[in-house]
């Protein structure tokens, strides 16, 4: 029996994250949907946490060295934030660090319902 040849039509497609390239720099934007409206203080904290992530990656040099600018954080509404990272390479261990930071923010501050297509940060899933 011939093995089935898969095509794009067989796949579930994620499209929430958006990428663009300018010269050597990739900008990739991600949507974070919180389970409840954030207070202004929580919005600021989220921005600060992402900036801290940037400085950690940039100066520790333990997670790849591709980030070239502090994240752009946009408050789309009280429950939705878009952040954009700019870097020369999307490969590297910064992703595991970002995953940990978002997971802890979701547990400690405000529950993240979705990150693009992922529901990995919903506290019930983390605690399970």
């Amino acid at each position: 029996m011939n093995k089935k040849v898969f095509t794009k039509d067989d796949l579930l497609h994620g499209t929430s994250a958006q990428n663009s390239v300018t010269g050597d720099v990739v900008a990739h934007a991600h949507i974070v949907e919180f389970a409840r409206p954030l207070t202004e203080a929580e919005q600021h904290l989220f921005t600060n946490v992402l900036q801290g992530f940037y400085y950690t990656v940039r100066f520790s040099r333990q997670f790849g060295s591709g980030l070239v600018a502090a994240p752009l954080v946009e408050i789309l509404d009280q429950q939705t934030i878009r952040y954009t990272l700019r870097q020369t390479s999307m490969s590297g261990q910064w992703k595991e660090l970002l995953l940990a930071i978002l997971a802890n923010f979701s547990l400690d501050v405000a529950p993240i319902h979705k990150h693009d297509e992922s529901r990995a940060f919903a506290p019930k899933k983390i605690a399970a």
Partner: protein
Amino acid sequence: MNSPDSIILYHGTDVDSALEILNHGINIEKLRLLQTGDTQLGEGFYTANNVEVAWFFASMAPGTLGKSYTVIECELLVEHLESLLEQGLALQALIVNTASIGEQIWFHPDAFEFVNDHAEFRPLSKESIL
């Protein structure tokens, strides 16, 4: 396969890389084109036991420029995975230093031929999405 003696692992990547794996298996030369920086466990094939974690990494995959991304399934007999773990050709580790969000299972390039021969790669089934 869908056997009680098997485990389903999830791999998030861009759609072209997903189709390459689904139709031709995992290939170290193709992976090297994407894994240009340091990776947590070294060069190899990364999967997660949590489909939601795989979606997170899919949205951050290096090959997603101008493309959509996806998650594929890799079903492997538990005895085969255990054998690879014992031989050091696979590693299973918590992904992050926080409350358990899942584990990642990494396959050394020397395990690729075995995995290609014994695992079933398929698109993510809708039943996998909770």
